[in-house]
């Protein structure tokens, strides 16, 4: 449109210039005749007419120029708009698949391994979509394989620790039987049987701990909470543990705040956590060390802590202290007989109660392990039910 308009305008402009030239020529001829004295009124009229005629031509061309300028401007605007529309269409056809990809990647990252994108659109985005889907397929396959392996591992540990109990019962039982007749044994034989029994007990602890962890991993470590007075429970554990700490000339003191409200816990599990923490303090501290067990209310939680003035834990070990089979440096003491699983289990148990556990330590001065339990009764949802855990992806 604009091109045709401009072409026509150029033609008109050419005609205009020709007409103007002709007009001057006619006027000049008339003026020459007037100058030569031939021109009368007719020649003068010609001069006037030609002047008017040129004015008309000029008005005409300036109007045409304006129209053409408007046409050109309109053409430019239309062209730009068209280009913009075309471009935004292109952007949109890129954007939609990209947005779908971003959305799917987000879902994939948050654990929804079934996230896929529709493959289509421009060839570049289609290729990207297909690559994304392929990656998601692989991730999903690997995850389901890993899940299966995890399940097998859990089942294996559960079965193995169960099956190992019968032979262990025999070994321990017959060693105990021998000890019933220790009067007839030589001191060397008594020592031998004691070593067998020590190792049996260690194996039992290991089996119990492994079983707890396997159950915890499989979401089958259920706790049965009931209203419990913590002070008598802590007191009972401390009294029981004094036999062991006294044997190493260690003092085991308790400092229980008065008026701690009843909490909703499984008493056996809290006992287990406390025994683990006190045992660690005892085993990793030298003879003559001091151990304190404290209990107090902090906000809407009750805190139980075990502090020792033993060698402490270096910072690089402290970061991993609640991981499985991580043990502190036992260089100072030969008493360490733990399984390396106690703190990992304690952490699982505290968390099952809706609580938290932490450790801090100053090397050379001692360590404190403290766990906090909520004072409010826990909602039913805090207790994992095997059915929901087993069916989760």
């Amino acid at each position, binding site marked *: 449109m604009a091109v045709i308009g401009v072409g026509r305008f150029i033609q008109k402009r050419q005609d205009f210039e020709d007409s103007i030239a002709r007009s001057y020529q006619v006027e000049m001829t008339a003026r020459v005749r007037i100058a030569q004295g031939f021109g009368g009124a007719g020649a003068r009229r010609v001069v006037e007419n030609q002047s008017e005629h040129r004015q008309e031509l000029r008005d005409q061309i300036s109007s045409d120029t304006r129209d053409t300028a408007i046409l050109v401007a309109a053409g430019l605007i239309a062209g730009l708009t068209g280009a913009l529309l075309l471009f935004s269409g292109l952007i949109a056809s890129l954007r939609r698949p990209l947005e779908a990809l971003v959305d799917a990647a987000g879902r994939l990252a948050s654990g929804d391994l079934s996230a896929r994108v529709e493959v289509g659109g421009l060839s570049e985005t289609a290729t990207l979509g297909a690559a994304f889907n392929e990656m998601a397929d692989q991730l999903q396959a690997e995850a389901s394989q890993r899940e299966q392996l995890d399940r097998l591992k859990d089942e294996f540990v559960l079965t193995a620790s169960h099956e190992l109990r019968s032979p262990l019962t*025999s070994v321990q039982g017959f060693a105990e039987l021998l000890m019933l007749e220790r009067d007839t044994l030589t001191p060397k034989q008594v020592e031998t049987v004691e070593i067998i029994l020590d190792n049996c007990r260690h194996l039992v602890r290991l089996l119990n701990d492994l079983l707890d962890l396997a159950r915890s991993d499989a979401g089958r470590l259920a706790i049965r909470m009931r209203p419990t007075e913590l002070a008598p429970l802590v007191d009972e554990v401390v009294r029981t543990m004094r036999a062991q700490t006294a044997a190493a000339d260690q003092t085991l003191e308790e400092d229980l705040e008065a008026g701690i409200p009843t909490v909703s816990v499984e008493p056996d599990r809290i006992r287990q956590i406390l025994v683990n923490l006190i045992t660690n303090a005892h085993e990793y501290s030298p003879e003559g060390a001091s151990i304190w067990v404290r209990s107090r209310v902090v906000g809407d939680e009750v805190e139980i802590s075990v502090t020792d003035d033993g060698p402490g834990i270096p910072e690089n070990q402290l970061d991993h202290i609640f991981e499985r089979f991580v043990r502190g440096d036992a260089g100072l003491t030969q008493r360490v007989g733990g399984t390396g699983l106690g703190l990992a289990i304690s952490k699982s148990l505290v968390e099952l109660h809706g609580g938290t556990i932490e450790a801090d330590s100053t090397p050379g001065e001692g360590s404190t392990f403290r766990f906090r339990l909520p004072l409010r009764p826990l909602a039913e949802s805090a207790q994992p039910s095997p059915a929901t855990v087993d069916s989760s992806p």
Partner: protein
Amino acid sequence: MTMVLVADDSETILLLMRTRLELAGYEVTTASDGQEVVDRVAEREPDLLLLDAMMPRKSGIDALRELRAGGCEVPALIVSAHQNPNDADAPTDLEIDGFVTKPIDFDHLLSSVADLTAS
């Protein structure tokens, strides 16, 4: 003499239990599966049952259920390889007088046996 029926599918465990119980002054009869338990109870009329929870063919639990259904009121302890027997195989509909976990704490077991056979 007080008679205890011990049931376990392991000969070694049976020997261990028999030795410890006889040393403590009990008469012992044994069974190696649930069916033998049912038969032995009828033959020997024991004063206490000490049954392994898991045995081939018929478990200690199933044998006890059968005995209870037949009106047998002999006290029974269930021996379980589970660390926390309440978790696994504790049927709530069955009258059980106690659980014993493996490895067996014999001091604890013998005091339970004494309590249950005292009356």
